[in-house]
Protein backbone atom coordinates (compact mmCIF):
# COMPACT_ATOMS: atom_id res chain seq x y z
CA UNK A 1 0.00 0.00 0.00
CA UNK A 2 1.27 3.46 -0.86
CA UNK A 3 1.38 5.62 2.28
CA UNK A 4 -0.72 8.75 2.32
CA UNK A 5 2.34 10.99 2.47
CA UNK A 6 3.31 10.03 -1.05
CA UNK A 7 -0.02 11.28 -2.34
CA UNK A 8 0.23 14.46 -0.29
CA UNK A 9 3.77 15.07 -1.55
CA UNK A 10 2.63 14.58 -5.16
CA UNK A 11 -0.27 16.94 -4.49
CA UNK A 12 2.08 19.60 -3.12
CA UNK A 13 4.45 19.26 -6.09
CA UNK A 14 1.59 19.63 -8.56
CA UNK A 15 0.25 22.61 -6.60
CA UNK A 16 3.67 24.28 -6.71
CA UNK A 17 3.94 23.71 -10.47
CA UNK A 18 0.48 25.18 -10.99
CA UNK A 19 1.20 28.17 -8.76
CA UNK A 20 4.47 28.94 -10.50
CA UNK A 21 2.74 28.65 -13.86
CA UNK A 22 -0.02 31.01 -12.78
CA UNK A 23 2.50 33.60 -11.62
CA UNK A 24 4.95 33.30 -14.50
CA UNK A 25 2.77 32.81 -17.57
CA UNK A 26 1.33 35.88 -19.24
CA UNK A 27 -1.11 34.10 -21.50
CA UNK A 28 -4.56 34.16 -19.87
CA UNK A 29 -5.38 30.69 -21.19
CA UNK A 30 -2.17 29.24 -19.74
CA UNK A 31 -2.94 30.94 -16.42
CA UNK A 32 -6.40 29.34 -16.38
CA UNK A 33 -4.86 25.94 -17.11
CA UNK A 34 -2.42 26.47 -14.22
CA UNK A 35 -5.42 27.05 -11.95
CA UNK A 36 -6.78 23.71 -13.17
CA UNK A 37 -3.53 22.02 -12.16
CA UNK A 38 -3.71 23.53 -8.68
CA UNK A 39 -7.32 22.42 -8.18
CA UNK A 40 -6.46 18.90 -9.34
CA UNK A 41 -3.64 18.80 -6.79
CA UNK A 42 -6.13 19.72 -4.07
CA UNK A 43 -8.43 16.94 -5.29
CA UNK A 44 -5.64 14.38 -4.95
CA UNK A 45 -4.97 15.44 -1.35
CA UNK A 46 -8.67 15.32 -0.44
CA UNK A 47 -9.21 11.87 -1.91
CA UNK A 48 -5.99 10.52 -0.34
CA UNK A 49 -7.00 11.72 3.13
CA UNK A 50 -10.44 10.24 2.63
CA UNK A 51 -8.79 6.92 1.75
CA UNK A 52 -6.78 7.10 4.97
CA UNK A 53 -9.94 7.68 7.06
CA UNK A 54 -12.64 5.76 5.22
CA UNK A 55 -15.42 6.35 7.78
CA UNK A 56 -17.50 8.50 5.44
CA UNK A 57 -17.16 9.90 1.93
CA UNK A 58 -16.45 13.44 3.11
CA UNK A 59 -13.21 13.99 1.18
CA UNK A 60 -14.56 12.50 -2.01
CA UNK A 61 -17.68 14.67 -1.68
CA UNK A 62 -15.56 17.79 -1.26
CA UNK A 63 -13.63 16.74 -4.33
CA UNK A 64 -16.88 16.25 -6.26
CA UNK A 65 -18.14 19.73 -5.41
CA UNK A 66 -14.72 21.14 -6.23
CA UNK A 67 -14.99 19.63 -9.70
CA UNK A 68 -18.44 21.21 -10.13
CA UNK A 69 -17.17 24.61 -8.97
CA UNK A 70 -14.19 24.27 -11.28
CA UNK A 71 -16.36 23.60 -14.32
CA UNK A 72 -18.27 26.80 -13.55
CA UNK A 73 -15.00 28.70 -13.09
CA UNK A 74 -13.65 27.53 -16.44
CA UNK A 75 -16.86 28.48 -18.26
CA UNK A 76 -16.88 32.00 -16.81
CA UNK A 77 -13.11 32.42 -17.15
CA UNK A 78 -13.07 31.48 -20.82
CA UNK A 79 -16.08 33.76 -21.43
CA UNK A 80 -14.05 36.61 -19.93
CA UNK A 81 -11.09 35.66 -22.15
CA UNK A 82 -13.31 35.85 -25.25
CA UNK A 83 -14.75 39.16 -24.08
CA UNK A 84 -11.26 40.57 -23.47
CA UNK A 85 -10.14 39.36 -26.88
CA UNK A 86 -13.14 41.09 -28.45
CA UNK A 87 -12.24 44.40 -26.84
CA UNK A 88 -8.44 44.35 -26.95
CA UNK A 89 -7.48 41.70 -29.54
CA UNK A 90 -5.14 40.13 -27.03
CA UNK A 91 -4.97 37.31 -24.50
CA UNK A 92 -2.07 38.73 -22.49
CA UNK A 93 -2.62 39.66 -18.89
CA UNK A 94 -0.38 42.72 -19.28
CA UNK A 95 -2.71 44.26 -21.83
CA UNK A 96 -5.80 43.75 -19.70
CA UNK A 97 -5.57 47.19 -18.09
CA UNK A 98 -9.03 48.50 -18.93
CA UNK A 99 -9.53 49.80 -15.39
CA UNK A 100 -6.19 51.65 -15.28
CA UNK A 101 -6.47 55.44 -14.84
Amino acid at each position, binding site marked *: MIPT*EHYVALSAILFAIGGVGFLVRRNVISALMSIEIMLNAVNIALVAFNRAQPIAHTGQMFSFFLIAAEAAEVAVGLAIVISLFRIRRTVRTDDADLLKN
Partner: protein
Amino acid sequence: MTALGFGFFYTCAAIAIAGAIATVAARNPIRGALGLMLMIVAVAGLFLALHAQFLAIIQLIVYAGAVVVLFLFVIMLLGPDASSSRDSRGQVTRAISGALFGAGSLGGLYLVVRPAWNHAMKLVPVDSAFGGVDAMGRALFGDYVVPFELSSALLMVAIVGAVAVARGRHQTDAKNLSKEAES
Protein backbone atom coordinates in the same frame (compact mmCIF):
# COMPACT_ATOMS: atom_id res chain seq x y z
CA MET B 1 0.48 -6.85 -5.55
CA THR B 2 2.45 -4.32 -3.53
CA ALA B 3 5.11 -3.90 -6.21
CA LEU B 4 2.38 -3.52 -8.79
CA GLY B 5 0.67 -0.87 -6.65
CA PHE B 6 3.92 1.04 -6.22
CA GLY B 7 4.67 0.84 -9.93
CA PHE B 8 1.19 2.10 -10.80
CA PHE B 9 1.44 4.99 -8.35
CA TYR B 10 4.87 6.13 -9.51
CA THR B 11 3.94 5.80 -13.19
CA CYS B 12 0.81 7.87 -12.68
CA ALA B 13 2.67 10.41 -10.54
CA ALA B 14 5.43 10.82 -13.11
CA ILE B 15 2.90 11.25 -15.93
CA ALA B 16 0.95 13.79 -13.87
CA ILE B 17 4.04 15.84 -13.09
CA ALA B 18 5.24 15.66 -16.70
CA GLY B 19 1.82 16.78 -17.92
CA ALA B 20 1.71 19.65 -15.45
CA ILE B 21 5.18 20.84 -16.46
CA ALA B 22 4.23 20.57 -20.14
CA THR B 23 1.10 22.64 -19.46
CA VAL B 24 3.01 25.36 -17.67
CA ALA B 25 5.99 25.46 -20.03
CA ALA B 26 4.23 25.16 -23.40
CA ARG B 27 4.41 28.29 -25.52
CA ASN B 28 1.67 27.01 -27.76
CA PRO B 29 -1.58 26.78 -25.72
CA ILE B 30 -2.80 23.76 -27.67
CA ARG B 31 0.20 21.78 -26.44
CA GLY B 32 -0.58 23.12 -22.99
CA ALA B 33 -4.13 21.82 -23.22
CA LEU B 34 -2.86 18.40 -24.29
CA GLY B 35 -0.45 18.37 -21.34
CA LEU B 36 -3.40 19.21 -19.10
CA MET B 37 -5.30 16.27 -20.62
CA LEU B 38 -2.34 13.98 -19.84
CA MET B 39 -2.27 15.16 -16.23
CA ILE B 40 -6.03 14.69 -15.86
CA VAL B 41 -5.93 11.11 -17.11
CA ALA B 42 -3.04 10.33 -14.73
CA VAL B 43 -4.97 11.85 -11.81
CA ALA B 44 -7.98 9.72 -12.74
CA GLY B 45 -5.68 6.69 -12.49
CA LEU B 46 -4.58 7.83 -9.02
CA PHE B 47 -8.25 8.15 -8.01
CA LEU B 48 -8.77 4.54 -9.10
CA ALA B 49 -5.84 3.47 -6.93
CA LEU B 50 -7.38 5.43 -4.03
CA HIS B 51 -10.67 3.55 -4.22
CA ALA B 52 -12.58 6.48 -5.71
CA GLN B 53 -14.01 4.88 -8.84
CA PHE B 54 -16.90 7.32 -9.14
CA LEU B 55 -14.59 10.33 -8.92
CA ALA B 56 -12.25 8.79 -11.49
CA ILE B 57 -15.12 8.54 -13.98
CA ILE B 58 -16.34 12.05 -13.12
CA GLN B 59 -12.79 13.33 -13.58
CA LEU B 60 -12.60 11.81 -17.05
CA ILE B 61 -16.06 12.99 -18.11
CA VAL B 62 -15.93 16.52 -16.71
CA TYR B 63 -12.26 17.37 -17.25
CA ALA B 64 -11.10 15.37 -20.24
CA GLY B 65 -14.52 15.47 -21.85
CA ALA B 66 -15.68 19.02 -21.14
CA VAL B 67 -13.07 21.32 -19.65
CA VAL B 68 -10.16 20.49 -21.95
CA VAL B 69 -12.43 20.49 -24.99
CA LEU B 70 -13.72 23.91 -23.94
CA PHE B 71 -10.13 25.12 -23.67
CA LEU B 72 -9.36 23.75 -27.12
CA PHE B 73 -12.48 25.38 -28.57
CA VAL B 74 -11.51 28.79 -27.19
CA ILE B 75 -7.88 28.42 -28.32
CA MET B 76 -8.99 27.56 -31.84
CA LEU B 77 -11.60 30.34 -31.79
CA LEU B 78 -8.91 32.87 -30.98
CA GLY B 79 -6.61 31.43 -33.64
CA PRO B 80 -2.90 32.24 -33.79
CA ASP B 81 -3.38 35.24 -31.49
CA ALA B 82 -3.81 32.80 -28.61
CA SER B 83 -0.09 31.98 -28.64
CA SER B 84 2.01 34.24 -26.50
CA SER B 85 4.47 36.42 -28.36
CA ARG B 86 8.08 36.70 -27.37
CA ASP B 87 8.02 39.79 -25.23
CA SER B 88 10.12 40.08 -22.11
CA ARG B 89 8.50 43.02 -20.35
CA GLY B 90 8.35 42.33 -16.63
CA GLN B 91 9.95 38.94 -17.11
CA VAL B 92 12.31 39.42 -14.16
CA THR B 93 9.53 40.28 -11.73
CA ARG B 94 7.55 37.30 -12.88
CA ALA B 95 10.51 34.95 -12.59
CA ILE B 96 11.26 36.20 -9.07
CA SER B 97 7.64 35.87 -7.92
CA GLY B 98 7.38 32.41 -9.46
CA ALA B 99 10.62 31.25 -7.85
CA LEU B 100 9.50 32.66 -4.48
CA PHE B 101 6.16 30.88 -4.69
CA GLY B 102 7.76 27.62 -5.79
CA ALA B 103 10.40 27.72 -3.05
CA GLY B 104 7.81 28.68 -0.44
CA SER B 105 5.39 25.92 -1.34
CA LEU B 106 8.10 23.26 -1.60
CA GLY B 107 9.48 24.43 1.76
CA GLY B 108 5.99 24.14 3.21
CA LEU B 109 5.74 20.67 1.70
CA TYR B 110 9.02 19.69 3.37
CA LEU B 111 7.90 21.04 6.75
CA VAL B 112 4.59 19.17 6.55
CA VAL B 113 5.83 15.87 5.18
CA ARG B 114 9.09 15.47 7.13
CA PRO B 115 7.57 14.92 10.61
CA ALA B 116 5.00 12.52 9.16
CA TRP B 117 7.31 10.52 6.92
CA ASN B 118 8.28 7.86 9.44
CA HIS B 119 4.85 7.67 11.05
CA ALA B 120 3.08 6.59 7.93
CA MET B 121 -0.69 6.87 7.99
CA LYS B 122 -1.57 3.23 7.41
CA LEU B 123 -4.15 2.80 4.71
CA VAL B 124 -6.76 0.54 6.27
CA PRO B 125 -8.53 -1.96 4.03
CA VAL B 126 -11.95 -0.82 2.87
CA ASP B 127 -14.86 -2.77 1.50
CA SER B 128 -15.20 -2.88 -2.25
CA ALA B 129 -18.29 -0.63 -2.27
CA PHE B 130 -16.34 2.35 -0.90
CA GLY B 131 -16.23 5.17 -3.42
CA GLY B 132 -18.42 3.36 -5.92
CA VAL B 133 -21.47 4.82 -7.61
CA ASP B 134 -23.85 3.23 -5.09
CA ALA B 135 -22.11 4.54 -1.96
CA MET B 136 -21.43 7.95 -3.46
CA GLY B 137 -25.03 8.25 -4.64
CA ARG B 138 -26.32 7.48 -1.17
CA ALA B 139 -24.02 10.10 0.34
CA LEU B 140 -24.84 12.63 -2.37
CA PHE B 141 -28.61 12.38 -1.97
CA GLY B 142 -28.45 11.84 1.79
CA ASP B 143 -26.12 14.00 3.82
CA TYR B 144 -24.98 16.21 0.96
CA VAL B 145 -28.27 16.93 -0.80
CA VAL B 146 -28.29 20.66 0.03
CA PRO B 147 -24.80 21.39 -1.34
CA PHE B 148 -25.66 19.21 -4.33
CA GLU B 149 -28.69 21.36 -5.16
CA LEU B 150 -26.68 24.52 -4.51
CA SER B 151 -23.99 23.32 -6.91
CA SER B 152 -26.62 22.86 -9.61
CA ALA B 153 -27.73 26.46 -8.99
CA LEU B 154 -24.09 27.56 -9.21
CA LEU B 155 -23.65 25.82 -12.56
CA MET B 156 -26.87 27.40 -13.87
CA VAL B 157 -25.75 30.89 -12.84
CA ALA B 158 -22.30 30.27 -14.31
CA ILE B 159 -23.76 29.21 -17.66
CA VAL B 160 -26.03 32.27 -17.84
CA GLY B 161 -23.15 34.51 -16.81
CA ALA B 162 -20.78 32.94 -19.33
CA VAL B 163 -23.28 33.43 -22.15
CA ALA B 164 -23.93 37.02 -21.10
CA VAL B 165 -20.23 37.86 -20.84
CA ALA B 166 -19.07 36.10 -24.00
CA ARG B 167 -21.88 37.34 -26.25
CA GLY B 168 -20.92 40.98 -25.95
CA ARG B 169 -22.93 43.93 -27.25
CA HIS B 170 -24.06 43.47 -30.81
CA GLN B 171 -24.24 46.41 -33.19
CA THR B 172 -27.48 45.10 -34.66
CA ASP B 173 -29.18 45.24 -31.27
CA ALA B 174 -28.36 48.90 -30.88
CA LYS B 175 -29.55 49.68 -34.43
CA ASN B 176 -32.81 47.85 -33.90
CA LEU B 177 -33.36 49.68 -30.63
CA SER B 178 -32.76 53.07 -32.22
CA LYS B 179 -35.13 52.20 -35.10
CA GLU B 180 -37.80 51.20 -32.64
CA ALA B 181 -37.29 54.42 -30.73
CA GLU B 182 -37.72 56.48 -33.94
CA SER B 183 -40.88 54.79 -35.13
